[in-house]
């Protein structure tokens, strides 16, 4: 194992431990790793947007190997969105910042215009069409009953979402069944997701284990670094416990 990889891995293990310290409480180690992540993340995003966004969607299309001032050989009409983009920068000026509303209006108009038929189709038409099925009793009694429960469930839950009718009387009763069905669904969703999430933490524990292994299989220097980092962590924990005990002794006992 090369020193280079080992040192980079040590850095990532250290940052991992800093982040986990958040579970105990906010502290300088977490603040550091969080700020680093925010900065590095924003920088990474910027670079990716320049190289994978700006260059292929705009620059490569405007300039096709000609002298830089001559854009006519490329797809010159891409100058229009570029100008719209530049209009956004009028926000840097206090007086003229309203000009930036033009590209925003365009952006919002496109987004909402696309959404109207698309969301109507995907969320309303398709979901409704999928509901219009005869209960399938040929697949067994339970299957048929389940189909009926689905239809009733959808209808009752929709009752819950009525805004302009008071949830009272029969209407309120149906809406009440609806909210119960919604809760069953929410519980199921929650329980279903728990399975996968633990493995994320398992993966982090294994990566720390691998790093310790890397150090103990490596040279004496690597071993020393692993030992120092581990001792530092243990020391910090001990200091924290002592601080905690001291504070507790100083406080008047609760109750």
């Amino acid at each position, binding site marked *: 194992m090369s020193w280079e990889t080992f040192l980079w891995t040590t850095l990532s293990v250290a940052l991992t431990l800093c982040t986990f310290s958040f579970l105990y409480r906010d502290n300088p180690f977490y*603040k550091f790793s969080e700020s680093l992540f925010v900065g590095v993340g924003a920088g990474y995003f910027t670079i990716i947007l320049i190289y994978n966004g700006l260059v292929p969607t705009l620059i490569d299309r405007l300039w096709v190997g000609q002298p830089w001032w001559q854009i006519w050989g490329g797809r010159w009409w891409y100058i229009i969105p570029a100008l719209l983009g530049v209009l956004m920068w009028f926000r840097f000026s206090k007086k003229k910042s309203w000009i930036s509303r033009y590209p925003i209006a365009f952006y919002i108009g496109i987004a909402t215009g696309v959404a109207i*038929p*698309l969301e109507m189709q995907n969320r309303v038409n398709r979901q409704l069409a999928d509901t219009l099925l005869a209960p399938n009793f040929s697949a067994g009694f339970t299957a048929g009953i389940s189909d009926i429960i689905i239809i009733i469930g959808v209808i009752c839950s929709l009752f819950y979402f009525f805004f302009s009718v008071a949830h009272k009387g029969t209407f309120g009763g149906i809406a009440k069944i609806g909210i119960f069905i919604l809760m069953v669904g929410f*519980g199921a969703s929650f*329980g279903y997701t728990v399975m996968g999430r633990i493995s994320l933490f398992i993966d982090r524990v294994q990566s720390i284990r691998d790093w310790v292994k890397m150090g103990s299989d490596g040279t004496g220097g690597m071993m020393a670094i692993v030992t120092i980092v581990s001792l530092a962590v243990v020391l910090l924990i001990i200091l924290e416990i002592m601080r905690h005990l001291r504070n507790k002794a100083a406080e008047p006992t609760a109750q």
Partner: protein
Amino acid sequence: MKKEIPLLIVFVSGLFMAVQFFVPHASSEFIYEFVMEWSIIIGIFALALGIWSLVRVSVNKIRRRSENWPYAIVILAGLAAMMVFALAWGGLESYMFRSFFNYVMIPLHATMFSLLAFFIASAAFRAFRARTALATVLLISALVLMLRFNPYLGPLGGPEAGLAQWVLNVPNLAAKRAIIIGIGLGMVATSLKVILGIERTYMGSD
């Protein structure tokens, strides 16, 4: 000029895109794709404003020596480092840029994400209490799903796995479907309000 024209732009471009949906012809597809690229390009130019805002807020923090100001330096350093690594040395292939991505961003990303395991545990502990009938229903259906793959309790494909599958496929499906239909109507209503100019707070005040 300041407000009427933008509202007109919203109306025209919105109506145009709504109609475009029903036209399968290649020329309509071409316009759709071109317009989507416009949105991407506008987004790229907007990024400059985003970065400017992050830098401004951080610099102000440092200048005013507000609480936790040293961490604003860390933010700026991280931002500058990534930009310099890539722009000065070899773009996306730059050694430092890639190493920072692999050994700083990826582990921080994975670790931050893995905190979710703990939050799930504490949320379950704190909130899954049989306080009301509704809360009890939520609790029971979550437990049914959590127990489904537990080898201490029964075989895979056994009755409780069947029950879990049923809860997932029947009441859960009904609930999801109703929510999705409602969301669809809400989205269309919101979009209509924006296109018609009824909802215009986002457009500024003057």
